Each structure stands twice: as C-alpha cells, then as structure tokens.
C-alpha cells in the first residue's frame, strides 16, 4: 500500500516541488506593477482595518496590541492560504497527472513553499513592527524552529485536503465558509475568552494553540515550555503523518478521478 521512498526520490520530489513553486510564484506576480508587494499589501490592509477597530477596545487589555494582532493574522493566513491552495493542488494539474506516471506530492508541497515565502515577507513586517514598539527581538530567533513544526502541521492538513479535494469538487466552497468561521473563532483580533462557547471551541482548535505559541515566542520572547513543546511537536508530527498516509493510500487513484 505505502512503499518506502528512497533518498533520491525525496531529492527529486523536493526539486520538483521547488520548480512548481517557482512557476506559481512567477505566475501570481505576472503582469503586476507592484509584483511581490501584493504579498505584503494583503495582510497589511487587513491589519490596518482590524487595528482601526481593535486598538481602541484592546490597547489597555492586551500589551503591544498591534503586534498581537499581526502575529495572529500572519500565522492564520499561512494556514488558510496553504490549505486553500492544496484543495485544488491535484485537480488543477490534471494535464500532468493524466499524462505521466509522476510523483503527486510535489503539487501539494509547492503550495507550502510558495506560502512560506509570503510568510517570510510577513515576518519582515513583524520584525519592523516589533522594532517600532521596542519589543525585544530575541523571540524571532526561536520562531524558525516553531515555524518548522507549524509547516509540518500545515503540510499534513494540505495532504489531507488535496486528497479530499479529488473526491469532493466543491470542497473549496465548503472550506471558504468553514475557514472563515475558524478565523472568527480563533482569537486573532480579540482576547481569548475564559468561558463560554468560544472557549470550548478553542479547546479543540489546534490553530488557537499555534497562534498563542507564536505570540508567546515573538511578543513575550518566551522559549517554549515543556507542555507547549510537546503539543507543537506531537500535533505537527501526527497531522503530517495522518495527511501523508491518506494521500499515499489514495494517490494512485487520483488520475482516474479527475
């Protein structure tokens, strides 16, 4: 059912993923005067609008509210953008998948690489904001380690969504609604409630934990405590293998279904 992949195959998959990500990156910025600044403009505008409303409400409750807001936005955006992309990762590459016996994983990994790049641009923004707010920058040194595991979690979700997307063609519409609901349910621009329905939802919302951890690292400069480290590592590794497993057992069937 699932066979072992050789180091050469892994190298080839990564090379293909990078090539596809480059193509997608180029196509996205095709014919645009502001090119890659679109990557920054989108979160910046959302940030500006939410800051306008949230600052008055939360500036006295949440220390460094602008940073709190931007960390929440960029972490959630990375998850949402990568998963949105993954839903059509297989179906939009029908011409390749139906005409050659090819590894399917790169079509999904390419999305993660592409959105990691835009995430890196957003981190530069965060760095700039932290400098303006005179927040110590030590947390930014730990963040790459956190992001490594977060990417693994997102990649697992992406593999799962790519698989389901082959069988349910309107999954992108379903996810557009559910993703938006999850966005509102996650405390991105407001304080995490200590009781009530939202509190219960967030108990089972892994993105809430990732957002909170990212905030603890960047805003408070905390190194990860044992409990958080165990959660981040375990949930990432579990999600990655769950996603990869479902993708691997179905991937040979993709060509007949698209």
């Amino acid at each position, binding site marked *: 059912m699932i066979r072992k992949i050789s180091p050469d195959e892994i190298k*080839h998959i990564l*090379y*293909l993923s990078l*090539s*596809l990500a480059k193509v997608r990156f180029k196509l996205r910025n095709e014919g645009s005067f502001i090119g890659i600044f679109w990557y920054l403009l989108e979160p910046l505008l959302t940030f500006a609008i939410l800051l306008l409303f949230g600052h008055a409400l939360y500036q006295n409750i949440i220390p460094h509210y602008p940073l709190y807001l931007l960390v929440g936005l960029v972490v959630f955006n990375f998850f949402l953008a990568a998963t949105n992309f993954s839903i059509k990762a297989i179906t939009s590459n029908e011409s390749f998948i139906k005409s*050659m*016996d090819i590894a399917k994983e790169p079509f999904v990994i390419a999305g993660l690489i592409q959105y990691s790049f835009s995430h890196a641009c957003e981190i530069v923004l965060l760095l700039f904001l932290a400098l303006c707010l005179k927040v110590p920058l030590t947390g930014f040194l730990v963040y790459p380690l956190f992001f490594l595991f977060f990417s693994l979690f997102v990649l697992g979700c992406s593999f799962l969504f790519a698989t389901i997307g082959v069988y349910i*063609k*309107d999954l992108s519409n379903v996810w557009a609604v559910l993703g938006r609901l999850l966005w509102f349910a996650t405390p991105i621009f407001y304080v995490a409630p200590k009781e009530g329905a939202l509190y219960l939802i967030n108990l089972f919302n892994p993105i809430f934990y990732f957002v909170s951890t990212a905030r603890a690292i960047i805003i408070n400069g905390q190194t990860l405590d044992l409990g958080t480290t165990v959660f981040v590592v375990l949930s990432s590794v579990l999600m990655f293998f769950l996603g990869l497993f479902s993708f691997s057992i179905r991937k040979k069937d993709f060509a007949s279904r698209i």
Partner: protein
Amino acid sequence: MIRIKVCNLSKKFDLDIAHNDGALAAFLRLLKAGEKQERQALQEVSFEAGSGEIIGLVGRNGSGKTTLLRILGGIYLPDGGSVEINGKAVYLAGYAQGLVPKLTMLENIQLVGTMRGLSPQDLRRKLDEIIAFSGLEEYTHIKVYQFSSGMINRLAFSTTIHSIEKHNPDILLIDEALGSSGDIDFQEKAMQKLNEFVRKSSAVILASHRLGIIRKYCNRALWIEKGQIQKSGNPDDVVNDYVFSKKEQTTSIK
C-alpha cells in the same frame, strides 16, 4: 522475452463522481449505498507483447484504448486482473499537455523537462538540442500564449521527446501522438525521431485512428470494442474488419 503480460484486465469508472461530485452529492451517495453507477472501460483484456513487437490499437472513441495504455503506463490502477511490465514504460499522449501559456518557451522547457524527470544538469545539457530541434530559436523568450498551434506542437514534441530520451524507455505507449506536430517538414522530422525511439525500444503499443500508420508500422494489431478485445492478429486483417464494422454500423444507422 515477454515485455508486457496482461491477464483478465478490468477497469471501471465511477459515473456518479463524474456527474455530480459536490459535497452534498457525496453525502447523499453515502446514504444510498449500493446504487453506484459505473462504466466498464475494460473487461477481461488479456494479451502479451514480446521484445521487438509493435502492436497497434484500433477502436472507436471511448472503446478503452487510452485506459489500457494508462494502466500499462502506471497512471491508472486496474480494478481486476494483472499486468506485468518488464522494463521501463513511458506513456506518450498529446504533447502539449502541461505547457503553461503565460510562461516563456524557455520556462516551459524547464518545467516540462523537470516534470518528465530531467535534473538541472540534464536540462542544461539538453536545452540547446531541444530548442534547435523545435526550430524556434528566435522565440525562446516569448510567452507561449503568443505562439501559433503549430509552434506549440513543435515546442511540446521537442521537449517531450528529448526529455524521455534520458530514460531509455524499453516500452513505448503511444496514444494518438504520431505525426500531428507542426507543419509537413516538422512532421517528417518528428516521425524520424519517433522512429528512432521505436527502433530502440523493445516493445511499442500504438493507439491511433490513423489506420495507415497502424498498417505501416505495426506487426500486430488489437481491435478494442466496448472495453474488450474484438480481434487480434495481422494489422491488415484487423484494420479491415474494424473498417468493415464501422461501415456496417453507418449503413444500419442510415
């Protein structure tokens, strides 16, 4: 040496998914399990191909030729029966598949070459050869959407054929991909190149509606009808019977 051995091969497609593939439909399908609609694309197909054989596949659209080739090429999984492939098999379909119109010719060569398994070193080595063969040296930095269909065919054929050259395929599975590339001069060049491949390969299976090609190049032919082998044998006999059945059907419709 037997290169391909196919035994009682079957393949069916889920028509429900093809017709209605939304989340709600999937949920409703779960509720009424057992009422699955399927199309039998291949049924109990068996044959063998040995080294040096060129087998032609003839049959109407939707008869199962492409499905058979895709199973042999490792693209589709069979639902029943067995397939044994001895050697490296490469499936060749419409060459223009995978080209991205908004990329330049050079970028498309890099993309398709990479997808076909060329490493960066291979690409650097083969690039000039691919461009020279296509005869489109002046257009390398032009985006492909500005190309005519003939130019697209030239680019696609040249990239595909030079990319698969690296793999030295033992078995070629050619699906309607002969002699439709560019103008007459290029078609001749393309046919010569393809002939080189055919000569080097141990076994070739060639599906085409151009019956002259089947008669000229194949030493055996299979006529597939509704997913089953209708007749197998000498290409002239098989093609004649196939043409006769088509004429008969046309007459009966009239």
